[in-house]
C-alpha cells in the first residue's frame, strides 16, 4: 500500500475525528480547570480554617496521584457508589480536577505575592473583602499567574491523550486503533505527533497573545 494513499485515505479520517474529540475535551477542560483553580486558590488563601484545609487537601490529592489513577477511579470506581459518567464526561471531570489542582498552586502563589497594601487600600475605600478580591487582587494575581497557568494548559493538551484509557476515543485512541489494525505504528504516530504539535503551537501562540494583551506596565 502506497504510503501517501495510506495516510490520506485510511489514517487521516479517523484521526481527524479523534482530533475533534480532543478539541471538545479541551474546550470544556481548559476553562473549567482554570475556574476551579481560581476557586481553590481563593479558598485556600481567603477561606476560613475548614475551607482552607479542604482546598489544601484537594490539591495534595490531585497533585499527588497520577492522572491515570484518578481517571480509573472516576470511570471504573465511582459506579460502585452509584455515580456513572460517560467516557467523555469522566475524562473531562478528571482533567478539570487535575489541572485545577495545578492552576490553584500557580494562582495561590500569585495571590500571596500581591502586597498587603492593595487589600488595605481597597478596604479603606469601603470595599468589602469580597469586592476587593474580585476587583483588586484577582486581576493582578491572575496576570502574574498566567505564565504558569499557560504551561499547565499546554500540558493538558498533551495529557488529554489519557482519555483513551477510559474508552473515550480521542486522537491518540483513534490512532492506536488504526495502527493496530494495519500494524503500521510509525506512520500513524508520526501523524498524531504532528497534530499534537500543531495544537500545542496554536494554544501557545494564543496564550502568548493573551499575555501580551493583558500586560500592564510594572505588573507581572
Amino acid at each position, binding site marked *: 500500500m502506497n504510503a501517501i494513499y495510506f495516510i490520506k485515505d485510511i489514517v487521516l479520517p479517523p484521526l481527524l475525528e479523534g482530533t475533534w474529540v480532543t478539541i471538545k475535551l479541551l474546550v470544556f477542560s481548559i476553562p473549567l480547570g482554570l475556574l476551579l483553580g481560581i476557586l481553590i486558590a481563593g479558598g485556600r488563601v481567603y477561606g476560613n480554617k475548614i475551607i482552607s484545609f479542604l482546598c489544601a487537601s484537594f490539591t495534595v490529592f490531585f497533585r499527588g496521584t497520577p492522572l491515570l489513577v484518578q481517571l480509573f477511579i472516576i470511570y471504573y470506581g465511582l459506579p460502585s457508589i452509584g455515580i456513572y459518567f460517560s467516557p467523555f464526561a469522566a475524562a473531562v471531570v478528571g482533567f478539570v480536577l487535575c489541572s485545577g489542582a495545578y492552576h490553584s498552586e500557580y494562582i495561590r502563589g500569585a495571590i500571596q505575592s500581591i*502586597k498587603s*497594601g*492593595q487589600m*488595605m*487600600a*481597597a*478596604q*479603606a*475605600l*469601603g*470595599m*468589602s473583602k469580597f*469586592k476587593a478580591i474580585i*476587583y*483588586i487582587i484577582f*486581576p*493582578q494575581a491572575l*496576570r502574574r499567574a498566567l505564565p504558569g497557568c499557560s504551561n499547565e494548559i499546554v500540558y493538558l493538551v498533551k495529557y488529554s491523550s489519557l482519555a483513551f484509557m477510559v474508552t473515550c476515543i480521542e486522537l491518540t485512541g483513534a490512532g492506536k486503533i488504526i495502527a493496530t489494525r494495519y500494524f503500521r505504528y510509525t506512520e500513524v504516530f508520526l501523524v498524531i505527533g504532528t497534530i499534537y504539535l500543531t495544537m500545542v503551537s496554536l494554544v501557545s501562540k494564543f496564550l502568548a497573545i493573551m499575555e501580551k494583551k493583558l500586560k*500592564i*506596565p*510594572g*505588573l507581572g
Partner: protein
Amino acid sequence: MQEDKAIVLRVEDIYKKYGNVEVLKGVSFEIKRGETKVIIGPSGSGKSTLLRCINQLTIPDKGRIWLENEEVTHTRKNINQFRQKIGMVFQDFNLFDHLNALRNVEIGLIKVKGMGKDNARQKAIEGLKQVGLEEQAYLYPAQLSGGQKQRVSIARTLAMDPSVILFDEPTSALDPELIGEVLEVIKKLALNGMTMTVVTHEMGFARSVANEVIFMENGKIIDQGSPHKLFTNPKHERTRKFLYKITELYGRSAEKK
C-alpha cells in the same frame, strides 16, 4: 458657626496589643470640622496603628470611635459604610497597580458608591485636575513618580467625599525633591476646610497647617497643643528633645517651607 464646630471624629481611650507588646495605651482625641490635627512622635509610638484603628483596618482591643455622632466601633452597621467616609492616604501610596490613574480614582465611585460610569469618570477627571495630574490620567502607577502616585492616591480618597481624611506619613516614602508637591496638595485641602489628621515628620508643614499638634510616644499622647505652644514651649522634656532631634535632621528645609 455651630456647624463649623461640630465634632467629626472622636477617638475614645483606644487600646491595642500585639502579642505582649502594648502599642496603644488609651489614646483619646477629637477633631472638629475643618480642623487639621498633626500627630508626631518617634517611630514605633503607635501613630500608624492609631490611624488604622480609626477606620477599623486594625480592630482595637478597647475603646470607641465615633464618626459624626455614630459609633464606628461595636456597631452592627456595616463598617464599609464608615470607611467610605473616612479617607485614608498611605505612606507607600497603595495605588491599584493594574489600573491607570483615572481608573484608580473612579473604581471606588463605581464599585463602592455604585455611581454610573460616565459620572464617575467625570468626577475622577475633576479629581485628577485638582491634584494637577489630568495629563497623567492614562498612565499606570509604575509609570508615575512617587509624588505623582501620592497625589493620585489623594485624588482617589477625595473622590469618595470623605468627612475626614487620615494621612499616614504621606511623604515619608518620597524622594526629598518630591515632598513639596504632595505637601502643597495637602496644604491646599486644609485651607479649603477639609477635616484631617496627618501623621508626619514634616515639622514645617505641622507648624504652618496644624490647628493642633499631638505628640505621641510609647502608645500614649504625651503632649498636645497649638503648634506655636508645642514648638516653642513644650510641656514635657521628651517633646522638646524629640523636636530638637527632628529639627536637627530636617532643620533648615523645614524652616523654609
